């Protein structure tokens, strides 16, 4: 009797190596008069502890792709796998940080961070410790009892990041998390988030239209084009440890120039 083992085994080994795999995703929107192809056969793999960014012009389908990865939008075809296992819908294994309306305005900062932990029915004492730990990490222990409306835009995003991290997801998905901030706050948060990633080494897939931000934060930059195709993959060979000043070095600028040209 012939078993299917030999044919499936190598494939399984290949897929279990990736933390998150986006496999051959196609998304067609049928709402308008003519169907619109938003994502065209996109595949990518995110290794554990990898930080990657997807850049692309607006309307290139990058946000759609991330929402599909989060399970919030159904793909027309293709699969999303976490640790080699297909995931059908949204779940706590893929935490997400959005650009707008990120916090629940009726909950205090601490309760926002505890939102996912309450859903998991984590014991109260453990919840409290976890919330305190992650608020400490994002430097907002002093604002635990404040309501979101009392916080600045940058602080809100830090709380949103703490809330996603406190849930201890396998992958963190970020949809232009710093896009709505002024440029100074944005740079501060980039630097803050780089340090945070250095400490936690969580696997991150982030969408941005800011090429500099993508290069600064990630090990790999994926470039999408207007037709919804993945156009290029750029491995960023900069040192692991990054400072904001690095944005002015020739190597950094060379990456920036190359990617900007790809986007044209």
């Amino acid at each position, binding site marked *: 009797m012939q078993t299917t083992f030999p044919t499936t085994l190598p494939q399984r080994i290949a897929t279990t190596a990736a933390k998150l795999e986006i496999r051959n995703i196609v998304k067609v929107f049928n709402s308008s008069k003519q169907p619109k192809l938003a994502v065209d056969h996109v595949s990518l793999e995110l290794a554990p502890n990898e930080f990657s960014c997807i850049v692309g012009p607006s309307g290139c389908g990058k946000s759609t792709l991330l929402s599909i990865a989060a399970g919030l939008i159904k793909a027309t075809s293709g699969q999303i796998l976490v640790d080699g296992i297909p995931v059908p819908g949204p779940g706590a294994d893929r*935490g997400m940080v959005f650009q707008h309306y990120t916090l629940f305005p009726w909950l205090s900062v601490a309760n926002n961070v505890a939102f996912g932990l309450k859903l998991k029915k984590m014991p109260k004492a453990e919840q409290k410790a976890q919330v305190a730990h992650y608020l400490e990490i994002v430097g907002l222990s002093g604002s635990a009892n404040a309501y979101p409306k009392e916080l600045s835009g940058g602080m809100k995003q830090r709380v949103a990041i703490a809330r996603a991290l406190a849930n201890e997801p396998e992958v963190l998905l970020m949809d232009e998390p710093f896009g709505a901030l002024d440029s100074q706050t944005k740079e501060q948060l980039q630097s803050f988030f780089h340090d945070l990633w250095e400490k936690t080494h969580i696997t991150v897939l982030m969408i941005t239209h800011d090429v500099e931000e993508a290069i600064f934060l990630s090990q790999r930059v994926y470039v999408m084009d207007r037709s919804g195709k993945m156009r290029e993959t750029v491995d960023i060979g900069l040192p692991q440890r990054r400072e904001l000043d690095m944005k002015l070095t020739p190597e950094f600028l060379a990456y920036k120039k190359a990617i900007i040209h790809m986007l044209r």
Partner: protein
Amino acid sequence: MLSDGDLMVDIIASSARVMAGFIFAAIVGIPVGIAMGTFYSMDSLLGGFVRTARYMPIAAFVPLIIIWAGIDEASKVLIIFFGIVFYNATMIADAVKFIPNETLNVAYTLGATRRDVLARVILPATLPNILDTLRVNIAGAWNFLVLSELIAAQNGLGFTIVRSQRYLQTDKAMFCILIICVIGLLTDFAFKLVFQLCLPWAESKVS
């Protein structure tokens, strides 16, 4: 007129009718509105009827309601109830639909089920709008009260206004209208206070 015991009776009778109609309209209107806003199927089922019923002239139904419900308190409460319940439902349904998608989606990515989202996101997120809706529609309730008391009532502020007309006591009628205004202002203030005390995190969209 203030020393007149009848006036107090009128105020209490009218306020009780308004409260009864208003509370029933809230008890029915809030869940229906939330269901319509949350579930597409509920909106398909009830939306057409509720939105059409909003244009139904309640004044034209007054004679019918009296035939069906008699001339007791029930008919007056029903007139107020039907006058505002459809507004409650549609305004709250719209409030639910205006919750940003991101707010719902972030809950899903934190591990929430549809039920969690309803109980922990949609309900608290619409609470300020529910209070605002009730605050706007209680004014409507007073309008329908006067309408319900024009016909077949033995007491109440609306009734007194009609009776004053009969004896050309315009001053008395004006005074009753003024009392309704004052009660309206007081309830409005009470709503504002409840809003600020219970929802310190929110900002009212009604001034």
